[in-house]
């Protein structure tokens, strides 16, 4: 079942280029890469799930020739999958970058990582082992959420600041430098590399008809080291948790995701459609388990506080609204606040920023208020239903499995 993570070494070192070629074979070089990928159902793995080949087609129709930007920043703080790809199977990511670049006739590939992430050095080392048709440039951006937003990366790749920017047209039509700019997640391009090698029938053999292939999932649970697993899309989330006892709720999608009650979450298929139907999101494939003795409200307040500090400082409603939202939620947790104020600030930040930070935070908090309704009552009376009181460990970005 392992495709992206095939051949992963137990000792943790990356596959060399020779090992990579022995495992996957050489990358095919069809004259028209885009035609060879026609009909590929692979969806973007950065969170939004946009069909990857459609994005490439849009860029090519718009004239191509702009850069392909591979997003290996892993800005979703709870995710580890792109780091695993970059540090363990870097050549699959670099192959995929070449596939995307050839598909749109890009002049340059830019691979972006967070400063300080082991992904950067790993990719640099891997690049030195190979010769690529399209020139590859590594780009480090500050280790914060907003740096990894697509328009921020497109801007940084064009020499500008790594900050989200308003754009009237899709980046794949017209990027910051005026040329079509294709921004794709590291797992998305790794999927392209597999698809080009093995073809549609092979690729579609796993997954659902609408969302073929496999997906990397970062699993986090208190007391257990976080890990990354590869599963076919559509796999029930419960299959990742052979011991479902003691689970209170699951945060799906990560810090920009939603809380689901345990029974709903465990039955929900790991796909965009499956998660949406269950009231969640697949996002970048993060699954965080909350135990019965852990307080989901407190956990959410901690995350909201952290996210408030992640604002780039560009957008007034985010700069002011996220700290106010975090504070209102902290007051509710402390038994001196009002839920109505939390809802008011959620409404005030929604849709009023250039990136997904305000909306993501508002939706995460909203789901906590619903799923932890009983806890909310207890906290309103100054108590807490959970003996541990303390929340699930709030992950620090870039801390590897």
């Amino acid at each position, binding site marked *: 079942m392992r495709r992206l993570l095939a051949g992963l070494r137990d000792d943790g070192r990356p596959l060399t280029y020779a090992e990579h070629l022995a495992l996957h074979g050489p990358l095919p070089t069809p004259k028209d890469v885009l035609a060879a990928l026609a009909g590929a159902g692979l969806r*973007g793995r*950065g*969170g*939004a799930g*946009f069909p990857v080949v459609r994005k490439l087609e849009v860029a090519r129709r718009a004239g191509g020739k702009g850069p392909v*930007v591979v*997003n290996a920043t892993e*800005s*979703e703080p709870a995710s580890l999958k792109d780091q695993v790809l970059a540090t363990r199977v870097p050549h699959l990511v670099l192959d995929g970058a070449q596939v995307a670049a050839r598909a749109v006739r890009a002049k340059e590939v830019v691979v972006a990582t967070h400063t300080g992430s082991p992904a950067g050095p790993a990719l640099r080392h891997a690049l030195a082992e190979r010769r690529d048709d399209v020139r590859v440039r590594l780009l480090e951006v500050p280790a914060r959420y907003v740096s*990894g*937003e*697509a*328009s921020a*990366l*497109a801007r940084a790749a064009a020499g500008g600041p790594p*900050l*989200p*920017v*308003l*754009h*009237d*047209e*899709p*980046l794949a039509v017209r990027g910051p430098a005026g040329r079509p700019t294709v*921004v*794709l*997640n590291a797992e998305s391009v790794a999927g392209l590399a597999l698809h080009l090698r093995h073809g549609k029938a092979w690729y579609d053999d796993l997954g659902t008809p609408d969302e073929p292939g496999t997906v990397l999932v970062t699993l986090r649970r208190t007391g257990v080291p976080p890990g990354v697993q590869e599963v076919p899309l559509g796999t029930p989330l419960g299959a990742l948790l052979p011991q479902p006892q003691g689970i209170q709720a699951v945060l799906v999608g990560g810090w920009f995701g939603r809380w689901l009650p345990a029974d709903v979450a465990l039955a929900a298929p790991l796909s965009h459609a499956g998660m949406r139907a269950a009231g969640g999101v697949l996002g*970048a494939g993060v699954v965080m388990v909350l135990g019965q003795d852990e307080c989901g409200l407190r956990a959410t307040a901690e995350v909201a506080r952290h996210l408030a500090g992640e604002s780039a400082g*560009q*957008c*007034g*409603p*985010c700069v*002011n*609204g996220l700290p106010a939202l975090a504070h209102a939620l902290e007051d509710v947790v402390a038994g001196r606040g009002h839920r109505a104020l939390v809802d008011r600030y959620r409404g*005030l930040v929604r*849709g*009023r*920023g*250039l*990136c*997904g930070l305000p*909306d993501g935070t508002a939706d995460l908090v909203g789901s906590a208020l619903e799923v932890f309704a009983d806890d909310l009552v207890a906290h309103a009376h100054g108590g807490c239903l959970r003996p541990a009181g303390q929340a699930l460990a709030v992950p620090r970005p870039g801390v590897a499995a």
Partner: protein
Amino acid sequence: MSGGASGRRLRVDWAACDGHGLCALWAPDLLARDEWGFPVVTVGEVPTAALPQARDAVRACPALALALVPVRSREGTNRTKG
């Protein structure tokens, strides 16, 4: 409001907006201000009758952060992570 829909909406470039608040003065039927002074677009599609107001508000913005755009144009919010 009468007069039909204009097919346009007000869009704030949040990176440019400094919350001067002049827009809300010129277009009180279309914009309010939040508690920090930043504009809240209160009407989705601008009614034709309110187009002059909307244009005044756009012109009044000292930060050039307000625009009147087709309703169907991209949202100001970028949702993808790439």
